[in-house]
């Protein structure tokens, strides 16, 4: 099926949804929920706004495709146009979302997931949707509390790498993802690498992977636009 079936422009109409929960899972990092009344493919995004006429932003869905609620993960950006209001919503409040769109699809095939910060969201959705086999997850964060949902991923054991850039801790790699990649003797070349993070993170990580001999054809990126 082509992506057109999911991303027709007409489907970007924003519809009201009622918030069912808001949790600050780490300092300035929030998870909001609302009831799911559509289906989606793990890795897809929703356009989100406080009012139907506002400029919307895209957020990856962070919940599983069978979960009764949709969850969205975001950083509070002080002075931002959307996240300060979003961080203040309460159950019962109305926000506006599009139908799911985008084609950063998860796959049942072996894959390496590389995320920075809240870039973990699409991989969490894939994980919670059952796409768990043969996955390696590399997640970077600044602080010890930046590895959101780490309890869920611990079953990956040695295939769950947490790169912490500002603090040291048990079982954590101290340094950036790039440094971790550079230090690997061998990276699997028979699987796709999915990247999600800022433009800088994606560009630097992609360059590091290519330097390590990973074909660009096996690197798929989603950037926080």
């Amino acid at each position, binding site marked *: 099926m082509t992506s057109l079936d999911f991303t027709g422009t007409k489907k970007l109409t924003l519809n009201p949804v009622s918030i069912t929960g808001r949790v600050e899972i780490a300092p300035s990092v929030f998870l909001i929920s609302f009831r799911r009344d559509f289906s989606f493919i793990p890795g897809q995004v929703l356009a989100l706004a406080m009012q139907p006429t506002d400029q919307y932003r895209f957020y990856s869905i962070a919940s599983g495709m069978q979960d009764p609620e949709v969850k969205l993960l975001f950083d509070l950006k002080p002075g931002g146009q959307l996240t300060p209001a979003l961080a203040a919503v309460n159950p019962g409040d109305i926000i506006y979302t599009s139908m799911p769109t985008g084609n950063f699809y998860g796959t049942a095939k072996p894959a390496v997931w590389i995320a920075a910060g809240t870039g973990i969201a699409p991989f969490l959705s894939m994980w919670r949707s059952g796409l768990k086999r043969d996955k390696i997850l590399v997640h970077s964060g600044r602080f010890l509390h930046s590895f959101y949902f780490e309890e869920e991923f611990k079953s990956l054991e040695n295939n769950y790498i947490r790169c912490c850039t500002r603090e040291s801790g048990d079982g954590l790699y101290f340094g*950036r993802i790039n440094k971790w990649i550079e230090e690997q003797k061998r990276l699997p070349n028979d699987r796709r690498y999915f990247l999600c993070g800022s433009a800088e993170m994606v560009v630097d990580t992609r360059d590091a992977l290519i330097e390590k001999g990973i074909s660009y054809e096996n690197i798929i990126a*989603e950037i926080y636009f």
Partner: protein
Amino acid sequence: MNKPSLFGTTLSELQEIVAEIGMPKFTARQIANWLYKKDVAAIADMTDISAENRRILEEKFDLGLVQHSKVQVSVDGTKKYLFPVGALKFIEAAYIPEQTRKTLCVSSQVGCKMGCLFCMTGKQGFQANLSAGQIVNQVRNLPEKDQLTNLVYMGMGEPFDNMEEVMKSLEIFTSEWGYGWSPKRITVSTIGIVPAIKRFLDESQCHLAVSLHTPFEDERKMLMPIQTVFSLSEVLETIRSYDLGRQRRVSFEYIMFKDLNDTPRHVKELARILNGIRCRINLIRFHPIPNTPLKGSDDAAIEQFMVALNNKGIRTTIRVSRGQDIYAACGLLSTKELVKKPVDD
């Protein structure tokens, strides 16, 4: 604290400003006239505005003009201008003189968020959006300004990721109160941000260029991360939904990569997906960037590709590479070396 700039304000913004300050309504047009038609160098020189009102304007605003800080000249005559934009940030603009056309390639952002695999600007990440004034300033302070025939938004940044300021700058360039340029002299290039394409086609009469680079969605995803959000089919569906008449042009930019997107299979698919869109394709030689896994197609392959597309009825041209020796050619603009921002995750 920096004062806001007058340069880069639209007429409606100037009308709000003068109303707020309590100046006569017609002063807005006088200011616009000084800013965009008379190339005034200081607020004090706006001599048809009363001395008292000029004093008030000076108290509240800077003019906001910025000279280039460096220029590099290519052996082919192309010039690359470096403009400072705020503290420790820089952008580049490329002036490309040809026999009959003199084109300026302007930047719309410091860096870029789009992360395309083949682009040098993407390698520096994103630092800032330019204001409309900073965009228009690249023309205003170009030594060759009066010779310009064409303007292309193909410098650093994705114009449609800075939509408000880009649209304001287009208004300044094309309005009778501004530079009064025909919109047919201006082309805005995008990698394909669908909602912004719709707004641009609705609100502007300028030409549109879209970075295509391959007709196959999966291949495009490897080259351009935007494909994961806005698919090529959606971009084409959007363009196809507009009747652009015969005056307005849609072109598709196509960088030629050896053994990746230069095959007969690509010609066939391009002909299929562009069916029904009155357009032209610009084939662009790939200008290698550091550590790239991509290789450029050779000249014979590019020529052959052009002929094959023309035979399919798609008007196709090869863009002449300009300014490659000074890194001013397509995809090479970057001020990364001037960016000292640490990135720690």
